[in-house]
């Protein structure tokens, strides 16, 4: 394969800076001019998405965009680079930000939440960090944005400012900062010192596979340090922060804890497996099988836990942990199609899961209900919402003609390329479990009769800013199935 054409371009940086400008606007507009503030958020999100999408044709044509910001160490620059997987992730995050912004307007106003300016400000910051991770060209750059994301989401997680928020926030930061500072940092500095005589650039393109110079034990230790260092990926046993973070308002859970933050985690893990180790080194070292087993365990265990959760958001959170396991699993399979499937799953699962969270939030706004057992018959009151929930569930389960099918298909193909039949079995069992914990929600809502004692007659669909986004993302699940060509190309697998 010939080296791709590298174009110097400032757009990745602009996509990073746009939220910062938006932040200034949001703070300036403030609580008193709420409409203006939300418009600014909306415009910022659109500008960011437009910038990201404008890079799409160039990357699809096989070129790569780069932008050099500054020199962190003598040999390590802060470098932004837009390649296929990064752009795919950035597209998903920035487009879904638009949807989430609209949804937030409905949700936050519907519930008369406080401190909305702070909410929108830190939301913008988080999205800037997410773009940074998506476009990072080396390990150190990705680490910077990773940490920025951890800190900038803390005020969102603790938004309610009460006791539960404190507990959730502590779990959240405790896990994320412990792993990133105590596991990841040593691993990074290890690579920095001992590869290339202290001249390691840690670049994802130029230095792929250089970890192979280490002894096998070191490689495996490093693999684990990296995998668990990026604890946002939610691999067990470092997953508890995610259910803890569900104390946040639903738009946060939807965009950050189903799309941006957790996907940043698995995206980093993907970068490690695919671009630091590389397929050749990874498939020969022996450590990746451990990761595959851990990921499979995560998938199955979290699905079982999800079965027992009555709180809808917690059920979705455990489902997310399971789905993240797919991505880590796919990346660890160390075949091209497996890793492509992992990247695809980032996008497919994002679209499906954000729909589910949107629905959970819409139900809460419309009826104040949080628990699955309370949802009897609500489907007749809120047909659009629950219909979207159904579609989202099916996509997450992985049925055609929905996006989730494609990524699971490639994951299975990747596993077969490696002759790991057991992975396919795990995928099948887990899909079955998905059916068990997701479908009953929709079924209860549509087919069970309402509680007679409760007067639910007043319940109707949530405000339109809540409903439109969730309908759109549900349709997006279909769209991703039918127009999957460019997605496949970005993920680096041929259709």
């Amino acid at each position: 394969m010939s080296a791709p054409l590298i174009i110097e371009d400032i757009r990745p940086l602009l996509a990073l800076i746009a939220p910062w400008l938006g932040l200034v606007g949001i703070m300036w507009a403030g609580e008193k001019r709420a409409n203006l503030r939300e418009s600014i958020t909306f415009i910022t999100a659109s500008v960011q998405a437009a910038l990201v999408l404008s890079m799409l044709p160039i990357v699809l044509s096989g070129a790569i965009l780069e932008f050099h910001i500054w020199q962190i160490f003598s040999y390590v620059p802060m470098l932004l680079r837009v390649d296929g997987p990064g752009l795919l992730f950035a597209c998903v995050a920035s487009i879904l930000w638009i949807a989430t912004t609209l949804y937030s307007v409905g949700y936050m106003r519907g519930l008369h939440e406080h401190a909305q300016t702070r909410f929108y400000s830190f939301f913008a910051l988080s999205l800037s960090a997410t773009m940074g991770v998506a476009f990072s060209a080396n390990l150190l750059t990705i680490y910077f944005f990773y940490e920025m994301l951890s800190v900038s989401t803390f005020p969102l997680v603790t938004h309610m400012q009460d006791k539960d928020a404190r507990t959730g926030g502590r779990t959240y930061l405790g896990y994320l900062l412990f792993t990133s500072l105590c596991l990841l940092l040593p691993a990074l500095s290890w690579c920095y010192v001992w590869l290339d005589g202290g001249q390691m650039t840690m670049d994802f393109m130029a230095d792929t596979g250089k970890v192979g110079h280490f002894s096998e034990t070191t490689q495996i230790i490093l693999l684990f340090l990296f995998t668990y260092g990026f604890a946002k990926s939610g691999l067990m046993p470092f997953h508890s922060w995610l259910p803890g973070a569900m104390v946040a308002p639903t738009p946060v859970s939807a965009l950050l804890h189903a799309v941006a933050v957790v996907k940043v985690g698995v995206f980093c893990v993907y970068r490690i497996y695919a671009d630091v180790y590389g397929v050749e080194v990874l498939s020969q070292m022996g450590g990746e099988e451990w990761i595959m087993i851990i990921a499979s365990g995560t998938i199955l265990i979290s699905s079982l836990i999800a079965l027992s959760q009555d709180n809808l958001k917690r059920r979705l959170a455990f489902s997310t942990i399971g789905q993240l396991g797919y991505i880590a699993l796919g990346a660890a399979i160390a075949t091209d199609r497996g890793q492509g499937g992992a990247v695809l799953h980032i996008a497919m699962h994002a679209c499906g899961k954000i729909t589910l969270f949107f629905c959970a939030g819409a139900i809460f706004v419309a009826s104040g209900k949080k628990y699955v057992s309370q949802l009897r018959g609500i489907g007749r009151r809120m047909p659009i919402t629950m219909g979207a929930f159904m579609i989202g569930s099916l996509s997450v389960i992985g049925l055609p003609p929905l996006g989730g099918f494609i990524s699971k298909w490639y994951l299975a193909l990747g596993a077969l390329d490696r002759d790991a039949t057991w992975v396919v079995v795990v995928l099948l069992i887990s899909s079955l479990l998905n059916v068990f914990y997701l479908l009953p929600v929709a079924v209860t809502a549509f087919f069970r009769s309402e509680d007679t004692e409760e007067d639910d007659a007043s319940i109707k669909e949530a405000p339109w800013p809540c409903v439109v986004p969730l309908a759109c993302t549900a349709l997006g699940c279909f769209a991703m199935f039918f127009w999957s060509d460019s997605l496949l190309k970005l993920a680096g697998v041929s259709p």
Partner: protein
Amino acid sequence: MMGDAIAWIFIFPLLGSVLAALSGFVNRKLAYPISVISMVGAFGAGVETLLQAINSSTHEVSYILGGWTLDLFPRGVGIEFRVDILAGLISIIVLGVGLIVTIYSKLAVEDETPNKESIYYSLMLLQITGLAGICMTGDAFNLYVLIEVAALTGYGLIAIGSNRAAAATFNYLILGTIGASLYLLGVGYLYIKTGTLNMIGIREVIEANRLADSATIQVAFVLIGVGILIKMAFFPFHVWLPNAYCNAPTTTSCLLAPLVTKVMIYVMIRMLLSVFGVEFSFESTIWVNWMPWLVVVAIICAAFMALAQREIKRMLAYLIVAEVGYMVGGIWIYNYYGMIGSIFHIISDACMTLCLFLGTGIILRACKTTHFDGLRGLFSKMPLTMIGFFIGGFSIIGLPPTCGFFSKWYLITGGMVSERWEYMVVLMFSTMVMVVLFFRLIERIHLAVSESGENLGKGHGDLGLSKEQTRFDEAPLVMLIPLLVSASCVILIGIYNQEVVNQIEIFLQDYDLPTGVDH
């Protein structure tokens, strides 16, 4: 005048000190502008000196007071000020911090030490002169004199505050004097054996006569080493520090906390590298074997003590003790990266401690307390102050891109290269403690939850405070701007860390430290 930039670094604040003292007879209000002007002058001269050092072919500038020649052997008997790149960098930090604190001091000094402004500023300028002198002198005995200048003025600056400060000062005075005496004794031994007091001279004699095995030199090394450890508040010699810094007037703690301990770290590096030489310090003594373990104990104890505090100032005081452990560890793990880390950490720690203490001063002024219980709602009351303060906090934790991240990076790397795993693990441990310390603070300010976990307000972000208490009421500009300047320094030094580290690398070229990597 160009060649005399070093002399001007001293002339400005010395002159300013005298004038500030005299201004008491005319108008006490004059002391502040006099101090600011002389600090600006000194800072300018410091920058000029550093640039001269960087641009000269030998990477150092030397200035001889009294005109004694350097050509004799043993080298020079006169008073030599020698500024190489390390000395230049640290003195710039001293002068910069001095300048920022002087500007910041206006309101605090008027409030806390009324009617004593002229004396206060006079002492403060002398203090800065002493600290800057420590960094630049090339003479081991003059170093002692300047340490005493800094210490004596320091006692005055602390004791000028409340009654409790006087007791704390006494503590400080006893330990400080012991430390300085040990150092002086050590210098005495060195002089007996080598016949010179000039730092370079001492090393030349030691190397020329192969005195490494001499018991006299060994004893001198131990005395000087222990003396410096006491002066820098290395655990368990830290007992003077928390009380002294907490009971001192705001400006004093802002000035002393970032500088005094850090300057003593510099002295340790200077002694090890320039006076005794790398080979003697690290190869001929057994310190290198057990110092990292002492550091481990020091950092763990300091971290736990910091955790136990419920007052920002005391918490920060123990943080400084922990940070001293970082830097001493970086030196004694004995390799190139560790040394870079230590030197860079002197610079970055001075900036971030300054940032935190300036912020604390503002909080103290606004809330009348720095106890954790009185801080709720400060984010809405003083958002800019809080941003400045927490940039310092994030830097202490070591979050990129603040300068604290980079110093920690080099320290960790150093620990790894020397395979000093205990040091690395303790760095991780204390990092997590810092995370707890600062995010606990954020919780206490941001959340409507009491320490025992009860909800205080009515929910939905109600902090249980009156409108009056959460209304936007930012600190006065004369305090806010220095804070924000220091916070931006924390970030800028982080972003441009490579420029600083390149200079440190030039300095370290002359010293043969192991890099642990086969190039």
